[in-house]
């Protein structure tokens, strides 16, 4: 095969002017159902990489992506496939992010394709996350080809899973392709199905350029690399392009495709996918879903579906060592170079010092950012509890978006507060259904749907996002022993009885610990924090109250009794140095203290209090 592979590789560079020879497709799968293995196998079969170059799961290039088995950035691979009909096709594989946090990014990736492979583990069946993405694909008018993977495993039940796909998704699974991505079984059938079952793209060559900006990333050698799908017109090296969202224009330096190696081409025509490089310094200028056009001959209207990305979850980041603040600022700047959806602005906290209030697309996005800061930039961080964006209607008619509980206006100035709600889909084995329903009810959920698929239940709930960011996923996992799968999408804003709970130590509010909660839960959560702080704050010279309060009304109270004895009755004799060492130790400890009025609270107490919040 080596000779043929080399020839096909050559073909991948050639422009494909005949649209009927192009197929653009995405792969939809739940984590561990075999998406990456299948992608690897397709690349290998079409000769995109030889054995030596083949690294496991070539698509996920970031460490975190590889470790967690998730995709954060979209990527494409152009493959040359000579089908059984003797014709050579250009197959463009779109690897999309697979997580709810990146739902918009997923929708844009899917909008760049005409079809999808729906990969389902033949023993596990359909999962909640698969479901959400398959609906996205349907919305994008995709032709969907079901693929049952791992059929070589003894536990495989292809018929049951086929029935499930038909029942749950409403998709004809009679012609599902049976494969084992691991052994290579059925891979030729997948390639043939792509050619024969997926529609070719459509598009006009001789009209003004319209290219969909699918994603972008920062490369330290090349600058910003943009992933595009050309809809109409031709993207040619040397031309001047214009971003339609902000009208910024750039000289196009390079056009190319991934095979998956980066290969330069002269142009990208209608139906084709690839990359462009145009001397752009920051990804913030490259908005996912934007339309790229010809600066000299611009299109009259952009492609539909563009919307700027909006953070839905916020939290604050503080360096454990206040000396690391500048480094944190620099690191955030570097991360933002490659992730425009992530926002930050400086924040000062009496409890935690200088830091940043950060906005993320979701909880996973938040975790990824924090993990990258700690891992790649070697920072020790304190993270406050995540909070959602509230809409506060003021009595004077003003509407405020609240990103931080600290900024909550006085209750008397508020006429109404709205909070974001989500539509959550949970698939869970029958025996855990009771606990799951109870959890959803505790979290103010409203049931919308309950159906059975074999021995699994699928429930759809409306839930406040606020309840989800508060350890919902961990609880769900633990009550279902890890068997429940869960996905959600932000649905709408609804007015709610919400209050800001302040935590007061010796009468002084501790900003970092204040939170917004539904009135029905304010007391129990406030009490919980007071009880924790009672154990975490060392005794002081006098007794101090720890209170939770809504406005001026105290809803929970604990008391830290006064220190009784703190004197070292030791023999210092003539040796002053010993006593001095002790005092220096105490002073060193005091440096890590934060002063609240007359009370010194070690920073470690705040960190512990915040950490316990996500247990």
């Amino acid at each position, binding site marked *: 095969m080596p000779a043929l592979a080399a020839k096909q590789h050559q073909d991948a560079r050639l422009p494909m002017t005949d649209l009927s020879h192009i197929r653009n497709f995405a792969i939809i799968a739940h984590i561990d159902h075999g998406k990456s293995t299948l992608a690897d196998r397709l690349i290998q079969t079409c000769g995109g990489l030889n054995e030596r170059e083949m690294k496991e799961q070539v698509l996920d290039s970031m460490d975190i992506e590889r470790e967690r088995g998730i995709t954060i950035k979209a990527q494409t691979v152009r493959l040359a496939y000579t089908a059984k009909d003797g014709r050579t096709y250009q197959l463009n594989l779109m690897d999309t992010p697979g997580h709810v946090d990146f739902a918009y990014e997923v929708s844009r990736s899917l909008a760049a394709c005409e079809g999808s492979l729906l990969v389902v583990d033949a023993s596990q069946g359909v999962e909640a996350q698969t479901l959400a993405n398959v609906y996205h694909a349907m919305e994008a008018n995709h032709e969907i080809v079901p693929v049952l993977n791992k059929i070589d495993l003894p536990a495989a039940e292809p018929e049951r899973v086929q029935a499930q796909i038909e029942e749950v998704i409403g998709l004809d699974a009679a012609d599902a392709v049976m494969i084992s991505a691991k052994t290579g079984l059925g891979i030729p059938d997948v390639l043939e199905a792509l050619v024969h079952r997926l529609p070719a793209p459509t598009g006009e060559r001789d009209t003004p350029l319209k290219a969909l900006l699918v994603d972008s990333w920062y490369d330290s050698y090349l600058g910003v690399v943009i992933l595009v799908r050309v809809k109409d017109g031709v993207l040619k090296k040397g031309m001047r392009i214009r971003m339609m969202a902000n009208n910024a224009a750039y000289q196009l330096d390079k056009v190319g495709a991934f095979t998956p190696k980066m290969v330069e081409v002269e142009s990208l025509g209608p139906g084709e996918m690839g990359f462009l490089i145009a001397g752009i310094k920051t990804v913030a200028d490259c908005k996912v879903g934007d339309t790229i056009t010809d600066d000299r001959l611009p299109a009259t209207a952009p492609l539909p579906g563009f919307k700027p990305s909006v953070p839905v979850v916020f939290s604050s980041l503080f360096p454990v060592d206040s000396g690391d603040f500048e480094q944190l600022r620099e690191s955030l700047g570097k991360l933002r170079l490659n992730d425009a959806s992530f926002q930050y602005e400086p924040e000062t906290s009496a409890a935690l010092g200088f830091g940043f209030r950060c906005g993320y697309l979701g909880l996973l996005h938040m975790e990824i950012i924090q993990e990258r800061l700690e891992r790649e930039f070697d920072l020790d961080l304190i993270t406050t509890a995540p909070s959602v964006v509230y809409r506060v209607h003021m009595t004077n008619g003003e509407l405020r978006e609240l990103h931080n509980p600290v900024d909550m206006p006085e209750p008397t100035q508020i006429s109404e507060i709205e909070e974001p709600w989500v539509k959550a889909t949970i698939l869970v084995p029958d025996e855990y259904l009771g606990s799951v329903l109870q959890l959803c009810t505790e979290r103010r959920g409203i049931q919308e749907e309950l159906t059975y698929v074999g021995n699994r239940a699928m429930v759809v709930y409306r839930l406040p996002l606020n309840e989800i960011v508060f350890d919902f996923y961990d609880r769900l996992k633990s009550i279902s022993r890890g068997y429940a799968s869960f996905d959600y999408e932000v649905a709408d804003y609804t007015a709610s009885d919400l209050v800001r709970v302040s935590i007061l130590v010796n009468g002084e509010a501790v900003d970092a610990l204040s939170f917004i909660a539904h009135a029905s839960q304010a007391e129990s959560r406030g009490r919980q924090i007071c009880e924790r702080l009672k154990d975490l704050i060392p005794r002081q010279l006098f007794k101090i109250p720890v209170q939770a309060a809504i406005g001026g009304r105290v809803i929970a109270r604990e008391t830290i009794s006064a220190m009784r004895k703190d004197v070292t009755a030791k023999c210092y004799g*003539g040796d002053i140095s010993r006593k001095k060492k002790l005092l220096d130790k105490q002073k060193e400890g005091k440096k890590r203290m934060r002063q609240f009025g007359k009370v010194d609270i070690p920073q470690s107490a705040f960190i512990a209090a915040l950490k316990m919040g996500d247990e």
Partner: protein
Amino acid sequence: MTQSPETAFHLYVHWPYCRAKCGYCDFASFVPKRAWDAAAWGAAYEADIAALRGRTGSRELGSVFFGGGTPSLAEPAVIGRVVEAALRAWEPRADLEVTLEANPGTVDKAGLRALRDAGVNRLSVGAQSFDPEDLARLGRIHSVDETKRVLDWAHHIFDRLSFDLITARPGLTPAAWRAELAEALEFAGEHVSIYQLTVEDGTPLSRDVAAGRVTMLDEDTEAEIFEDTRQIMAEAGRPAYEVSNFARPGAECRHNLAIWRGADYGGVGPAAHGRLTLEEGRFATRHAPDPAAWVKGPPPPRLEPLSAEERAREHLMMALRLTEGARAEPFRLRFAADGMADPRELMNPDALAEAVGLGLIESGEDGVRATEQGVMLLNTLTARLLDGERTPR
């Protein structure tokens, strides 16, 4: 105490050897591998004293204190040579105090007499506990009976007698401690030092605590023992004059009291520390700890310059542990030349006002002192009071 001992100079003599190392001890002490050469040690002390005299010049000598280690292991002849050398080097006051720390397991009646004849006029006996089991657990080499016998002899041989006790031992109840202290007082002289067992890094005790083999007393029990001790000692006519030191009025340890009041002291012997005010400035002095190197001919101590402010802060740390507190007038006399006219200038005014308001500190014309309640919280108080910058009044 009408005479101020603060103007005099004081000499600390460190003897580094012990027969066995106690599990709680983190002092510079060693168990020697073979017998030491008494003549060499005598000569080394003489040389160290001569060198120190060279730095201090002529000074009035208020006290000599033999600490360790176990200085009662040293031959009385060695002690005698040190006392004589000190008397030659400086101008001894008429009431010169010469204290020696003695382990009851290392001395007999004749030995005590020999120490007295060598010039020791105050004996401090390391009794540590009157409970036989706890005494063994502390790793002491003597029995309670030996302690009692040595104290009986010492009463006849020395005018001034003190002993040390260690309280707040694991498992100790306040009731058991009150009984033990009552028994100990039957043997007491003018002075008693009572320490609370403290876990120091690197000691076998700290390893036992870390491994969970030993549990130290909780804060409330320690507090009760501390309060009881102060009350019992006051009723026994020996009120606390420092956190862990109790004496009949006028019978305080002059050596330690002087140092806590901020006086100069020189250190001789391995690992000995000192504080010297010389023409060139104020210094902290420190000898290297290795006995073998020191006895070959004492290398000069390290002299670290101390600013007047550092020295004043050190002084306040110790002075706040005294019942009399940090006295304004002696402080002014000692530090006014360096621009510090009152101890309160070094104290955080907010912390001081707070402590006074809480009834933990008294601040008046004559100075600043911890109240009976304040003594209990002195570590935190001192840290808060001495935190921050100078604020001239």
